[in-house]
């Protein structure tokens, strides 16, 4: 079914293909993100209930959504690496993990920044924030495991196994934390859910969600290309490429 993808698994072909994707995605993502964040943070009307502070959702919600989306992509790459033994998929795990970790951090920090005007504290153990925190530990665990081995390939493979195990656990953790949160319900009820939003607030949010996705794509291309160069450093095509780059600079 996926035979047409076979040539792209080869590092050299993938390296060239990713360059075109990167060239397209990087400027596009920056433009979209700038549009979304400036519109959302600056020009949307104030919420009747929460005033101006709610605007942080234009950064918080996309970051939170994509932190989980990035983990899903990392798990897909890990699955491909384990089942079909594709080396470039193994390297993709190391490329994707830090991006996901940073997205999770952004979600946590913006969540805390939203929390301060809402509940008066920087941190509260609500379901969403606690889930994000655990997701951060999952990402950091994958990164730590990958870097803990003397042999880089063993690290990549171990990280792949952990990523797949983590993705099976992710829904279990998510629902456990939600259930736990209902048990220990405090006086404050979070209003992170937005069942209906006015279109003037919805559009910048959607644009930001798209922007975060494009940025993820662009950064993954960049990091994966670097990973390919690192892993294939002993091959002649890499040496040739490096020489060409040096000649181009001179």
């Amino acid at each position: 079914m996926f035979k047409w993808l076979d040539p792209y698994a080869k590092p050299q072909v993938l390296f060239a293909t990713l360059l075109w994707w990167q060239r397209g995605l990087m400027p596009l993502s920056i433009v979209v993100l700038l549009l979304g964040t400036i519109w959302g943070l600056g020009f949307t009307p104030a919420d009747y209930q929460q005033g101006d502070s709610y605007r942080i959702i234009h950064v918080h919600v996309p970051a939170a959504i994509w932190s989980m989306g990035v983990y899903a992509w990392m798990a897909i790459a890990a699955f491909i690496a384990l089942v079909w033994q594709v080396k470039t998929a193994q390297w993709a795990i190391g490329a994707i993990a830090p991006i996901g970790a940073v997205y999770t951090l952004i979600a946590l920090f913006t969540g805390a920044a939203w929390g301060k005007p809402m509940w008066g504290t920087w941190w509260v153990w609500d379901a969403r924030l606690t889930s994000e925190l655990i997701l951060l530990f999952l990402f950091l665990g994958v990164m730590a495991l990958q870097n803990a081995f003397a042999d880089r390939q063993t690290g990549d493979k171990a990280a792949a196994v952990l990523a797949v195990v983590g993705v099976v656990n992710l829904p279990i953790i998510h629902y456990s934390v939600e259930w736990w949160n209902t048990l220990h319900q405090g006086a404050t009820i979070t209003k992170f859910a937005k069942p209906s939003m006015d279109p003037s607030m919805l559009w910048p949010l959607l644009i930001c969600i798209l922007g975060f996705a494009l940025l993820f794509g662009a950064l993954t291309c960049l990091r994966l290309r670097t990973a390919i160069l690192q892993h294939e450093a002993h091959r002649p095509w890499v040496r040739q490429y490096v020489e060409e780059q040096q000649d181009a600079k001179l």
Partner: protein
Amino acid sequence: MLLSARQLSCVRQDRVLFEQLDLQLHASEVLQIAGKNGAGKSSLLRILAGLCEPEDGEIYYQQLPLAQSADDYADNLCFIGHLAGVQPQLTALENLVFWRACFALKPADDWALLATLGLAGLEDIPCQQLSAGQQRRVSLARLWLTSAQIWILDEPFTALDQSAIAALTAHIAAHCSQGGAVLLTSHQPVDIPGYAVREFMLEYRW
């Protein structure tokens, strides 16, 4: 031709140990992989034993690629690596019992076998109380119990004294006379009575 490797290459920690390496192992043959320290002998042996994946290249067992013949190959292979494979808190007898269950070894009189290996009287003390040479003898006991045709041995003569070396080389000769093949590395000169040892030199690369 029992085992053949084509265009094998191995990269360890960004160092290319060897590339485009071709190797054949035939029945009734003793092949010694020679080379300096760090040339990649152990890595080559581990790849041939199916423990690691090579960076490039293919291994063929009985003309079939390893991807198809891995189980048959493993049934017909006895690999004893650099490490002894002996659990130190168990006695020699208990180790043999465990190996018999895991590797489908021939049932035999373990006491007699250990006696022929020069370990009479040491069969039921924990292996950590044995000397390094005696532990190595216990780990080599597998060779007397296995019915595998191909033996891959990484520095089997380490820590062995003259009598043990003589016993091992005689056993290797007997194995070859029955159609078996042995692939080994050693820093000492290998002398198998009745068989010329073919040498395969691994160049040390930066």
